[in-house]
């Protein structure tokens, strides 16, 4: 069953058109990886799906309803959660308050502070520390935990490995594995192509705001994505 569909979406930053006529559909339980060079429109596309950026044209349909006109907080209530690029925690608040701030605002569900702690055990000793004082990996775990507290049906992860050490990235993905394997619907932006191909069911490559490649992750080779990534002809699917 299709949970998310994006149709002919356009989005701009002032004069710059960041997303050009993007269409994609996502089935419930599917993990989609968005890849592409810097400035390809990945972040803008995720922000349009989450409602943090207003699309100039096109449609976003979620669970059968047109949500294009809804502001972000109303989309959260329907089950869309975005973990923003750069984590964007409430730095002056404690980890517990960061998580509690999101509690009870999204859908009803079974994500609690305890369950987030069980998913990200590295956070347990830091519960009462200021979020701004945590390491990058811990902050990323809080950002994902905060999104999970809204009990999303669709989780959008924007560059969870940005600025983290390889060890911290492994720890975050280790924690995410249960989530990804457990039937969650996820769209993730990931710069590490090998990792993206490993965790995703499907890969979509963006180039200058357009979809230039889409394919099942297991049938996709690194070379195919690389060609699409750099805009070489033979990469087009």
């Amino acid at each position: 069953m299709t949970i998310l569909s994006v149709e002919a979406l356009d989005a701009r930053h002032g004069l710059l058109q960041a997303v050009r006529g993007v269409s994609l559909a996502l089935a419930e339980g599917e993990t989609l990886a968005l890849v592409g060079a810097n400035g390809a429109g990945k972040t803008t596309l995720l922000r349009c799906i989450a409602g943090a950026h207003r699309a100039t044209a096109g449609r976003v349909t979620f669970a059968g309803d047109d949500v294009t006109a809804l502001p972000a907080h109303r989309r959260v209530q329907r089950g869309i959660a975005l973990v923003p690029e750069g984590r964007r925690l409430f730095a002056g608040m404690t980890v517990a308050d960061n998580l509690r701030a999101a509690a009870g605002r999204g859908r009803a569900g079974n994500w609690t502070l305890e369950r987030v702690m069980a998913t990200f055990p590295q956070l347990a000793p830091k519960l009462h520390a200021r979020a701004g004082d945590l390491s990058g990996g811990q902050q990323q775990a809080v950002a994902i935990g905060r999104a999970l507290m809204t009990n999303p049906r669709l989780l959008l992860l924007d560059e969870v490995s940005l600025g983290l050490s390889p060890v911290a990235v492994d720890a975050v993905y280790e924690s995410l594995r249960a989530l990804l394997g457990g039937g969650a619907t996820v769209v993730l932006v990931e710069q590490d192509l090998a990792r993206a191909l490993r965790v995703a069911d499907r890969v979509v490559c963006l180039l200058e705001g357009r979809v230039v490649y889409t394919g099942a992750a297991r049938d996709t080779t690194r070379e195919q994505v690389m060609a699409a990534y750099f805009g070489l002809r033979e990469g087009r699917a």
Partner: protein
Amino acid sequence: MIFLNQIVQGVLLGGYYALIACSLSFLFGVMRIVNLAHGSLAVLAAFMLFVLADRAGLSPWLGLIFAVPAMALVGWLLQVAVLERSLRSGLLVPLLSTFGLAIVLDNLLFEQFGADTRSLSPYIGDLSFDSWSLTDDITVGRLDVLMLCVAVALLGGLNLFLARTRLGRAIRATAEDPEVVGLIGINAHRVYAVATAVAMALAAVAGAFLAMRTTFDPYSGGAQLIFAFETVVIGGFGSLWGTLAGGVVLGVAQNLGAFISPHLFLIAGHVVFLAALVARVWLSGRNLRWLRVRAA
């Protein structure tokens, strides 16, 4: 002993300053909105209470039951009609729009009530002049003590509200990042409106005590704003208990200044304020340098 008395009276005066700065500290420190109409809005509440007392014979305490919700409503409208639009254009625009609002309010009040000075002290009975003698030399006014207690209660209550309640957490989160709260299901517009309503309810209490303690007229707002601002800056941006400390420091400084020479009452307060400001800027400059080193 006279010296000690000056300090005691300074602390009590500080309670009053903390009380009138409460709303400003919340809006300025927590929500990062500089409300230059704060003094005028407090005076507006004072006139509301005066009209209720003068025309309807309602004691100012009972009057607060009406004035607090009325001012909260004013706060809601203020946010929706003025602040929200001006916040969109950066931090400086609310400064201008609230400055303009202060001028409009002052002059509307002047047109309605004229230049007469008024006071709520005739309506609160003995409280306006009664006192307790602590020693032969030190006497404290009951109203002053009450104001200090109310200031502590309001600041403590606000702190608890921000730390423990769901709405308080939403307010802190929105102050830190109004865009990201949308991504966790919080309607930032509504949070801003609620916070401004809370701030105006506090301004109503400030106006009540301003009017009970002394006289006021339509242009009293400006002077109140200066003391409230100095209190917030001395106490530290965003710290509610700091506001209480700031009020006490300002009150004691003014009283000690007056003890040396009566002319020094205001100057001593301003000097402490400037010293605190310079110290803060200097310290934050050092912190920024330290941060740059760490980031590199």
